[in-house]
C-alpha cells in the first residue's frame, strides 16, 4: 500500500526522491493554509477540507503502519543538516496514533466549534500541529526534529491566543515554559550532536551517558518531559483549560503532547543514549515521574472545575509514563508506552465529555452543575468508562498499564512504588468526587439554563466519545492487541499481555481502590455533598495551608521565574541607571569642568603662555633624562 503511494509521489514530483513521508508533513500543512483561504462564511467547505486533511493523514499513516519502512533524504544545506525522514516500527505506530486522535477530535471539533468565531484559525493551527507532529516523529535528523518541535510551540501559542485574544497571558505563560523546555532541548541536541559527531540520527546511537553525554541526555530529557507536560513545565495547562477552546485541550495537552513527549523520551533513553536500570539518570527520571504523579494529583483533588481538574490529571498521569520509562526495565518501558496510549484515549474521552457538558450547560464549574446523568446518559456512560480507566479499575485499559508500571516501580524502589500507589488512590478519590458531583445527586443547573434545554450532545460529538470509550474497554479486555504493537519496539521475546502476573500488586491496587471508595463515602457522609467528599483532605490541618499557598500560585514555576526575572530586571535597571549616571552626569560634569578650567587658563596673557612653554620644556627635559 505504501509502495503505491510512493509510486504516486514519484509520479507527481518527477522522481525527486520525495515520497510518502514527505506528504505526511506537507499535505496537512498545505490543507491548513487552504482552510483559511476558503471564505469565512462557508463553514461547511472549511470543515470538509479540514476533515479531509485529517482523513488523508490517517490513510497515509495506515499505509506507513503496514509497510513500517521507508526513508527519504533531501540535502538542504551543508553540515549534514538534511531534510531526512525515516519510519520504523515505533514511529509508524506513533504516527498512526496521532492520525487516529486527529480524526476523532477533528470530528468532535467540527461539531463543537459550529457557530463559534475563529474556527478557521483553529482548523489551520490544528492541521499545522498535525503536520509538525508528523515531522517531529518521522525526522531522521536532530536539527529537523528540533525544527518541527519548535513549530509545535508556534501552533500551540496560536491556538491559545485564539481563546484569549485580548490578554494572552496564558499563551505567554505556555510560550515561556515551552520555550524554556525547547531551549533545553536545543542545547541537548547540540551537546548530543557534538558527542556523536553527526546530526543524522543513524549516527546517534546508544551513546554513553558520561561527560558531555550527561548534558546532552539531561537537556534533551528535559525538553521531552517538558513537552509531555511534566513538572516543572506543567503550570500553563490548567490555565489553558480555562481559556482555550475545549478541543484544544483534548488534542494538545491530552493527546499530542503526551504522545510526542513520551515518544521522544523513549527515543532519548533507549535509542540515542543507553540508560541502564539503577543508574543515576534512571533515578532522576523516576524521581521526576514520581513527584509529578503525587503533586499534580494532589492539586487535581481539590479542583472545582471539570477542565482544571482534568488538566491536573493530564499532568499527573504523565508521571506514570515517565516513572515507567525511568525504571529502564522492559516491563516499565512497555508499561509506560501502554499507559501513554491508554491515557490519551481516556483523557481525550474525558475532555470530550467535559466539552459536551460545557456545550449544553455553558459551564464546567462543579459548583453550578450536578445530576446531569439523567439528562445526558450517553455522555455519562462514556465518562464512567473513561473514569474507571483512569482510576485503574479492572478490566479497563488503565488498570493493565498501571499494573505494569507498578510492577516496574516495585522492582526499582519502594519509594517510587508508594508514590505511584498514592497517586492511584488520589486519582480514584478525585474521580469519585467529579463523577458524583457532576452526573449524580440532585439536578442543579446554572441560573438561566432550563432543564428541558439541556439534552444529549449531538451525534458528531458522541461518536468520538463513544469510540474512545469503547477503545478503553477493548484495550483492556484484549490488551494483547496494543501490546503486540508496543512490545516489538524494545525487542523480541517480551510478552506482558493477559492478566497481570503479580497477584500481590493486583491485590494492593484493589485494596487502594476500595480505600478510595471508603474515603469517598466517609467524606460524603460527613458533608452530605459529592463535591465536598474530599474536603477532609483539603482542609486537613497542615495540608490546608499548603493548598492555600498552591491556590495562590506560590509554587507555580512560571510565577517563580517571573518574580526572579522581575528581580533580575530590577537589578539590571539599577545597573543601567548607574551606568547612565556615569555617562550622563559624572562624565559630562568632569569633562565640562576640565574644559572650563582650561578655558580659564587660556586667559590671553602672553606671560602665562610663556610660563607654560617653559614648564613644557622642563617636562620634556625630564622625559629625556627618563628615556635615556
Amino acid at each position, binding site marked *: 500500500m505504501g509502495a503505491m503511494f510512493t509510486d504516486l509521489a514519484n509520479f507527481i514530483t518527477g522522481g525527486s526522491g520525495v515520497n510518502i513521508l514527505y506528504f505526511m508533513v506537507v499535505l496537512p500543512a498545505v490543507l491548513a493554509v487552504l482552510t483559511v483561504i476558503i471564505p469565512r462564511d462557508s463553514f461547511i467547505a472549511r470543515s470538509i477540507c479540514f476533515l479531509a486533511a485529517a482523513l488523508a493523514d490517517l490513510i497515509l499513516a495506515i499505509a506507513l503502519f503496514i509497510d513500517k519502512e521507508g526513508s527519504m533524504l533531501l540535502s538542504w544545506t551543508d553540515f549534514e543538516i538534511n531534510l531526512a525522514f525515516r519510519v520504523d516500527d515505533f514511529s509508524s505506530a506513533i504516527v498512526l496514533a496521532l492520525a487516529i486522535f486527529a480524526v476523532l477530535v477533528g470530528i468532535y471539533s467540527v461539531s463543537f466549534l459550529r457557530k463559534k468565531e475563529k474556527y478557521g484559525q483553529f482548523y489551520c493551527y490544528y492541521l499545522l500541529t498535525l503536520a509538525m507532529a508528523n515531522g517531529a516523529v518521522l525526522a531522521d535528523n536532530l536539527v529537523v526534529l528540533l525544527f518541527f518541535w519548535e513549530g509545535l510551540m508556534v501552533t500551540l501559542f496560536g491556538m491559545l491566543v485564539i481563546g484569549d485574544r485580548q490578554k494572552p497571558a496564558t499563551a505567554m505563560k505556555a510560550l515561556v515554559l515551552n520555550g524554556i523546555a525547547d531551549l533545553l532541548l536545543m542545547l541537548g541536541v547540540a551537546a548530543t550532536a557534538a558527542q556523536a559527531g553527526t546530526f543524522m540520527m543513524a549516527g546517534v546511537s546508544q551513546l554513553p551517558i558520561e561527560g558531555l553525554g550527561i548534558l546532552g541526555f539531561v537537556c534533551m530529557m528535559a525538553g521531552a518531559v517538558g513537552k509531555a507536560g511534566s513538572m516543572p513545565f506543567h503550570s500553563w495547562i490548567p490555565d489553558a483549560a480555562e481559556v482555550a477552546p475545549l478541543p484544544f485541550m483534548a488534542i494538545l495537552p491530552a493527546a499530542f503532547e503526551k504522545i510526542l513527549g513520551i515518544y521522544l523520551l523513549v527515543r532519548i533513553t533507549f535509542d540515542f543514549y543507553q540508560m541502564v536500570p539503577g543508574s543515576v539518570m534512571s533515578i532522576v527520571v523516576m524521581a521526576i515521574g514520581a513527584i509529578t504523579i503525587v503533586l499534580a494529583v494532589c492539586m487535581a483533588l481539590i479542583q472545582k472545575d471539570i477542565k482544571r481538574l482534568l488538566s491536573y490529571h493530564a499532568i499527573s498521569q504523565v508521571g506514570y509514563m515517565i516513572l515507567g520509562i525511568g525504571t529502564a526495565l522492559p516491563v516499565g518501558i512497555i508499561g509506560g508506552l501502554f499507559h501513554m496510549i491508554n491515557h490519551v484515549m481516556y483523557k481525550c474521552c474525558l475532555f470530550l465529555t467535559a466539552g459536551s457538558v460545557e456545550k449544553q450547560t455553558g459551564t464546567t464549574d462543579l459548583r453550578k452543575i450536578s445530576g446531569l446523568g439523567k439528562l445526558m446518559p450517553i455522555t455519562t456512560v462514556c465518562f464512567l468508562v473513561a473514569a474507571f480507566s483512569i482510576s485503574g479499575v479492572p478490566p479497563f485499559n488503565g488498570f493493565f498499564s498501571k499494573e505494569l508500571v507498578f510492577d516496574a516501580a516495585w522492582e526499582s524502589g519502594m519509594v517510587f512504588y508508594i508514590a505511584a500507589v498514592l497517586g492511584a488512590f488520589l486519582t480514584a478519590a478525585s474521580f469519585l468526587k467529579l463523577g458524583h458531583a457532576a452526573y449524580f445527586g440532585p439536578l442543579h443547573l446554572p441560573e438561566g439554563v432550563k432543564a428541558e434545554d439541556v439534552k444529549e450532545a449531538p451525534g458528531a460529538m458522541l461518536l468520538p466519545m463513544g469510540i474512545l470509550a469503547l477503545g478503553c474497554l477493548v484495550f483492556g479486555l484484549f490488551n494483547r492487541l496494543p501490546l503486540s504493537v508496543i512490545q516489538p519496539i524494545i525487542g523480541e521475546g517480551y510478552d506482558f499481555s493477559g492478566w497481570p502476573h503479580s497477584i500481590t500488586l493486583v491485590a494492593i491496587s484493589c485494596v487502594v481502590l476500595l480505600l478510595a471508595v471508603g474515603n469517598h463515602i466517609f467524606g460524603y457522609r460527613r458533608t452530605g455533598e459529592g463535591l465536598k467528599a474530599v474536603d477532609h483532605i483539603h482542609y486537613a490541618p497542615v495540608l490546608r495551608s499548603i493548598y492555600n499557598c498552591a491556590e495562590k500560585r506560590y509554587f507555580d514555576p512560571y510565577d517563580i521565574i517571573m518574580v526572579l526575572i522581575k528581580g533580575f530586571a530590577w537589578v539590571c535597571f539599577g545597573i543601567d541607571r548607574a551606568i547612565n549616571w556615569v555617562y550622563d552626569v559624572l562624565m559630562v560634569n568632569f*569633562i*565640562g569642568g*576640565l*574644559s*572650563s578650567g*582650561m*578655558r580659564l587658563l*587660556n586667559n*590671553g596673557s*602672553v606671560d*602665562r*603662555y*610663556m610660563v*607654560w*612653554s617653559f*614648564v*613644557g*620644556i622642563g*617636562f*620634556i*627635559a625630564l*622625559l*629625556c633624562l627618563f*628615556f*635615556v
Partner: protein
Amino acid sequence: MSAGLEFVLLVFMGLPLLIVLINNLLKREIAQKICLSLGLIAGIGQMVAAIVVFVSLNAAGQASVDFSQFWNLTAGASRFSVDFFSLLALFCIGMVVTAGFLTAGKTIGDKRFNFTNLAMIILLGMNGIALVTDLFSLYVFLEITGVASFVMIALNKEGNGIEGGFKYLVMSAIATAFILGGLAFIFMQSGSLLYSDVASALSDWQNVDQPALLIVAFALVLVGFSIKSGIMPFHGWLPDAYQSAPAAVSVILGGIVTKMAGVYAILRLTGDIFVGVNLVNQILMLLAIVSIVLGAVAAITQTDFKRILAYSSISQIGYILLGASCGSAIGLIGAMLHFFNHATFKTTLFVNSAAVETATGTTEIEKLGGLQEKMPVTGVSSILAFLSTAGIPPLAGFWSKLLIILAVWQTGNFFIAGLALFASIFTAAYFLRLQRCVFFGSAVEGLENTKEVTGGICLSSVVLSVITVGFGLLFPLVLLFVQSQGLI
C-alpha cells in the same frame, strides 16, 4: 631632469615672487582690482604645478628630484628637493591659498593689496619649508613665513588682531631662539646641516662625544617646532591668533601655515633626520596624545566658532604627530594623509566660519542658530567636514585616522591607541555642539533674513567638500598607489 620639469619647478619659488613684483609695480588703483585674481593664479598654478610634477615623477619612476634655483648646486650649501610628501604639502598649500583668496573676495575689504603681498610672501615661505634640504634654510623660510603671518593677523590694525599677532610674535621668537640654539648644538656634532649629513651623524647618536649636548639639542628643536605647531602645552597663542585674525587670514593661517611651520617640519625631522632616534619618538607620542585629548576637551566649552576650530586644530595636529611618532612607514603615511585631510576639512570649516561671519556678522555660536535652512551649502559642507574630522567612514578623515591608530597599535602602546580612538568621541561632541548651536533648530531672532553667501566662499566650500568625500571614497586607490611605491 627634463628642461620642462625644471621650468615647472620654477613655479614654486618664482611665481609668488613674480606676483609680489607685479603687484607692487602696477598702479595702486589697478593693483587693488586685480590683486586677488593674481593671488588665485598663484594658488591654482601651484596646484597644477604640483600635479604636473607628481605625474612626471611617477612616469619617470623617480621618488624625488633635486634642483636649485637661486643657489649654485655645485657649491653644496643649499639646494631643493621634491618628493611625494613635499608635493602633497605643496598641493595642500596651493589649495588652501586658493580657498583663502576666494574667501578674501567678500571679506577683506580695502586691505586686499596688502593681503595679496603678504599672502604671496607666506606662500613663498611655506613652499621653501616644503622644498629645502638643510636645517638652516628651513629656519630662514620659517622666519619668512612667521614674519609675514604676524603682520597678516594684525592686518586690520585693530586691538584684537594686534594682540593676537603680538602673542604669535613673542612665542615664535622664543621658538626661533630654541630652534637656532638646537641647530647650533647639532652643527657642533655633525659639521653640516644638510638633512642627509645630520641623519648619518646622528644615526649612532649615543656614541658621539657629548650625547648630553645632543639630548639638549633634540629637546630644544622639538620644543621650538612644538611651539610653532601649537601643540599642548605650547598652544597658548594659537586660539587667540586664529580668533583675532580676519576671516580670509584665518583660512590660510588655520588651514596650512601653522601646519607647514610646525607639523611639516616635525614630520621632516622624524622622517628624514631623527630616523631611529627612539627618544624623540617617545616624547613626541606623549606630547601628541596630550594634545589630542586636552585639545578636544578644551574645545567642548568654547563659545566662538573660530576658537572651537582652533582647539580642534590642536587636537588634530596631535593625530598627525602621533602617526609620525610611531617611527613606522604606515604611521608616517597615515600622518601625511591626515595632514592633507586636515588641510581639507579644517579649511572647509574656516571657510564656513567666514561664510557665517559674512552672513550674520558674528562668530559667537550662542548668538547663532537655525542657519541650516538659510545657508544650506554652508551647513552641509560643515557637517561633512566635521564628520570627516571625527573619523566617520567613508569620509577621508576616517582612513587616515585608521592608519594612524593602527600604527600606534603596532608599536604596542595599546593604551595610547585606545585613548586616540576614544578622543574621537570628544571630537564628535564639540562638533555636534557647534552644529546644533549654529545650524540646527529654528532661526533665532534677528537672523530670519540671513542669506546664503555666494561666489568664492560658496565655491570653495563645495569644492573642498567634494574633495573630502571623493578622497574618502577613492581612498583604496591611494593605498594602492602607496603600496606600488613600496612604502608599506
